[in-house]
């Protein structure tokens, strides 16, 4: 149901009602929920208790949510899920670039929040091994990122060097939205050029090779105005 046994989840929100909603969403599992209503208290609590996951509301009275995110990220790798009332692209991008892992816009349904929390916990537990040398099988696709080789129904399909770099980056961070900037840096390093355009061209060609229906992609999902995410369970 909710997060598995024993996980400590820190909820940072100045609204007691929202803290209650998050607490109830997690109630079915046996995770221990800690609560903080200010950014300062949250940072202290996170340092003392080392939570497995953090739910952070952006509208805090004492400091900007993005600063809380950045400060915790400086020494903790626990997934951070942000709650926000706004849905401006620039804000989402800034948060993801500051180290947040996921982003939920209010109002959200408790089951959606629960699902996202579980996904992040699962991902963070697997993180050290994921994408490092493992052969990945998704339906008819077989991906060996090390060799590298890519097969559909056993038939090898050629990917260009750039497509491999892009594919590997997405797989390595599966389940997490990577911003356009993060993807560009990972694939092209510091080279200059029209980042948006390069990225679109190669995402499109990669989709044509790996997606069953490239017009309705299910593996490389577009996060509008923000970036792309590799989704597979």
């Amino acid at each position, binding site marked *: 149901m909710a997060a598995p046994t024993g996980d400590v989840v820190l909820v940072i929100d100045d*609204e007691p*009602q*929202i803290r*209650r*909603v998050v607490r*109830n*969403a997690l109630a079915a599992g046996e995770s221990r929920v800690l609560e903080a209503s200010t950014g300062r208290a949250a940072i202290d609590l996170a340092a003392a208790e080392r939570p497995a996951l953090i739910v952070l509301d952006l*509208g805090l009275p004492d400091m900007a949510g993005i600063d809380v995110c950045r400060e915790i990220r400086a020494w903790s790798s626990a997934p951070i899920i942000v709650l926000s*009332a*706004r849905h*401006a*692209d*620039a804000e989402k991008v800034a948060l993801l670039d500051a180290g947040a892992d996921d982003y939920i816009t*209010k*109002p*959200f*349904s*408790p*089951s959606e929040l629960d699902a996202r929390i579980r996904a992040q916990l699962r991902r963070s537990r697997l993180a050290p091994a994921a994408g490092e040398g493992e052969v990945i099988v998704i339906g008819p696709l077989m991906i060996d990122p090390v060799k590298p080789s890519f097969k559909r129904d056993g038939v090898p399909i050629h990917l260009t060097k750039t497509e491999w770099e892009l594919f590997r980056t997405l797989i390595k961070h599966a389940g997490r939205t990577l911003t356009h900037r993060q993807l560009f840096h990972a694939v092209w390093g510091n080279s200059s*050029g*029209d980042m*948006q*355009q*390069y990225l*679109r*061209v190669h*995402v*499109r060609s990669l989709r044509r090779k790996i997606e069953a229906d*490239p*017009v*309705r*992609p299910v593996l490389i*999902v*577009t996060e*509008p*105005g923000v970036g792309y995410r590799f989704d597979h369970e």
Partner: protein
Amino acid sequence: MTSAPASRRGIRTGEWAAWLVALALVTVVLVAFRARLNEAHYALAYLLLVQGASARGGRPLGVALAVGSFVCFDLFLLPPYGTLTIQNPLNWLALLAFLATSLLSAELLYRAQAERAAALEAAHRAKDQVLAAVSHDLRTPLTTIKALAHELATPDDDRAAVIEEEADRLTELVGQLLDLSRIASGAVVVNAQPNEAEDLLGAAAQRVAGRLDGRELRIAVTTDDVLSFGRFDFSQTLRALVNLIENAAKYSPAGAPIDVWAKRDGRWLVFVVGDRGPGIPAAERDRIFEPYYRRPGVAPDAGGAGLGLSIARGIAEAQGGTLDVGEREGGGSEFRLSVPAIAEAELRRS
């Protein structure tokens, strides 16, 4: 971009020259009628000129004109003519009073204008803050309502589920009202980037999945790489396209598929949403984009507040595009959302 400051400097120089010519003309006219005029006439004529210059060109121009008028006044209108000396010492007093008055009026006009600009900017800022605050303050209680209703829902009592659905409707409405007020006040932030049509169509299909009452959404894409790039704001354009698809679902018969495709039309990248509904009479084709407009004969419970199309058009226009509607071959309507396309030559360079 580089030409903008240069042309502004050009306008400034032209403006200064025009006011100096005006000063010369006024002086020539006053000199011509010197025999029939007195100091009061001169002072009022120059004062008018100085105030005009301050109002149009700002403080530096006003001050320059005040000093220029002072010199012309002394040189050409107070005897002995052609020198800076003055016969009647009392005229010095008049001249100095003139200078003080004109400098003061230039300064006052400048301050009034600066205050007005500051007030306008403050009003804009306040409006943005109100929009953000309203958005936050409404969404937070809606989150609680929705979540608690969700928790209370049981299989044999649908009241909690209804509360949750209504909370969702209210959320949607709040979002639309905020969008519309942002568009109406010119506060839409448009972040136009090179984007690709197929990516947008795919995202739209994902967003409307399960919201079309079982209607099929058919997407057609061109396989030509070059034709499908445009310069547009991805998430705003996505919102506009989703509004068009939902509108098509609202007005087309149950089970009729909705078609969406992209095409290149000259310098435009056009997203087309086609339905097999009753079509829209020519007389109504502009009115349907007005907020809250409801077509005659359409049941008031057709869903939504009638804002989707006006928001879509506002988004199209905010990024230099257009949205219009026409007849579809074989019956129904075709909504065309156009955004600037990226030229092939520009694309090849990458």
